[in-house]
């Protein structure tokens, strides 16, 4: 007999007395509020305020009084640097989906078996992921430095003039995306490896006995099995692209001439450093809507993927 069933037979007053004396109500009243308060105060409330402030022209001092309606949003929508930032974010998504994830998948297929050599490679490939983004950004700003870095050494080796890729309007963002791939492909690879290791060995064996080639096994046994992992990693690539900030600051700080902004560096540069709290909050609201859209989309795809 379970406790719940036993309790149900008792009269209401007795149930109340029991739940008070065994600490059921106390437990809920003691254990739950800290989380609720912290979360409401530092996550949900600022989120709501973001929406509220976005309708004001406000420098952050006193209380917001200058109501401007949707003007902040209109200014953002008409701002060419914001368009650039959104375009850059989409570029990161594209590179993640079409370059980084296939690379990660290929590597995962090559080293998912548990052997000592594979373990070493796994470790190496995962290493950039555990570094702080700022450290990764600094390391690569050295690599790309036209006077000192590895690109300088390579250019010198071929007798070419050294170049400053991070100061080049056309190519700076390609450099940023190189760093992003370098930093995150190991993470995606780990997700795939975990999934590949759960593919039942006898299915692969059966396919092999049927005469399937290595590529056919990959195509018809392994990839279908790890499809949920691929969806998860795609989701993370997209959500990650929406949040890129730390890497940009040491690399380019959004420059040259604002060519390498992402949504968050845009928010930081034009909202916070200039104390345009209303304007920055409006950028935050747009970011929020983008993130929620992705999350809902993901939920639909994921639940459909599970049913299939």
């Amino acid at each position, binding site marked *: 007999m379970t406790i719940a069933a036993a309790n149900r037979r008792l009269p209401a007053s007795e149930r109340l007395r029991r739940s008070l004396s065994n600490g059921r109500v106390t437990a809920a009243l003691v254990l739950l509020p800290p*989380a609720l308060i912290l979360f409401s105060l530092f996550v949900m409330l*600022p989120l709501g305020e973001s929406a509220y402030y976005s309708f004001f022209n406000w420098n952050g001092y006193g209380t917001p009084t200058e109501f401007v309606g949707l003007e902040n949003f209109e200014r953002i929508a008409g701002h060419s640097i914001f368009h650039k930032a959104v375009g850059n974010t989409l570029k990161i998504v594209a590179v993640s989906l079409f370059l980084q994830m296939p690379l990660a998948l290929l590597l995962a297929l090559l080293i998912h078996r548990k052997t000592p050599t594979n373990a070493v490679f796994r470790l190496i490939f995962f290493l950039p992921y555990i570094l702080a983004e700022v450290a990764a950004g600094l390391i690569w700003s050295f690599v790309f430095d036209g006077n*000192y870095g590895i690109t300088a050494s390579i250019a010198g080796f071929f007798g070419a003039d050294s170049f400053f890729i991070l100061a080049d309007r056309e190519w700076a963002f390609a450099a940023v995306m190189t760093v992003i791939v370098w930093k995150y492909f190991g993470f995606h690879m780990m997700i795939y490896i975990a999934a590949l290791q759960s593919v039942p060995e006898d299915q692969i064996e059966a396919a092999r006995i049927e005469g399937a080639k290595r590529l056919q096994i990959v195509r018809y046994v392994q990839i279908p099995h790890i499809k949920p992992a691929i969806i*998860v990693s795609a989701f993370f690539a997209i959500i990650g692209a929406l949040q890129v900030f730390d890497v940009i600051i040491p690399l380019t700080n959004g420059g040259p001439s604002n060519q390498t902004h992402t949504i968050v560096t845009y928010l930081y540069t034009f909202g916070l450093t200039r104390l345009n709290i209303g304007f920055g909050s409006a950028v935050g609201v747009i970011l929020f809507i983008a993130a929620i859209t992705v999350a809902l989309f993901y939920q639909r795809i994921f639940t459909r993927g599970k049913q299939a």
Partner: protein
Amino acid sequence: MTRGQLIRNILRVAFLCVVASFVLAPMLATVLGGFKSNAEIRTSALSLPESWNLEFYGSIVSDPAFWRYLGNSLLISSAAVILTLIVGSAAAYVFAQIRFFGSRMLFSYLLLGLMFPFATAILPLFIKVRDIGLLDTWWAVILPQTAFSLSLAILLFRTFFEQLPKELFEAAYIDGCGYVRFFWRFTLPLSAPILATVGVFVFVQSWNNFLLPLVVLNSREAFTWPLGMMQFRGEYVTQWNRTLAFVTLTIVPAIVFFLAAQKYIVAGLTGGAVKG
């Protein structure tokens, strides 16, 4: 092994080595660069240094500011971990163990934090922290970080707590053990693996966090190491060897920590990934 297999295996390892050198070369250049003079970095970024000059590493290690940055980060990250574990597990325990009206709704509410990035609300957060008077204190980093970690922590904790054997609670209950006591005496000690996983996840996130400290910390006394590193870079902008030595000294503990807690880190980071 047939010849075809052998060739295929050689190609495989060759490809892996190419990718590995793409990963390792920048790190190697960083570690070695800390030993070189700037003139030497200029001519050969990747070669071994002509002489292993310890001056630049030495000047950073003997700089109290460097240790203060690391100490501040350690304190903030540890506090965020402890708070997240206590507050998060307590809430998750209620959701796993006690059915009450509105519990599902509150649970979903607390999971909303999984849906959007930290940066979304950074400006109002800055205003709030300023108005409470926490600006430039460690709490300004610890509390928001804890709050944002709670969603994932509660989700993972509840899943784990629900898998603990129900009979255990019933036996303890009949022996007169109340809910709160059961939580401390049984649930938490039995949950060491998930506590470690979540703890490592929160620690790494907090240790590496840049945006929040950048926004809420102003004085160098309060700086965390990523801020200190950027500050240092700004001061020695023409001296890459010093910056590279600084970066190396901060990534070495990260790598050692990773090697020591590899199991939990991979579980925490990829498990944290599969949160949807």
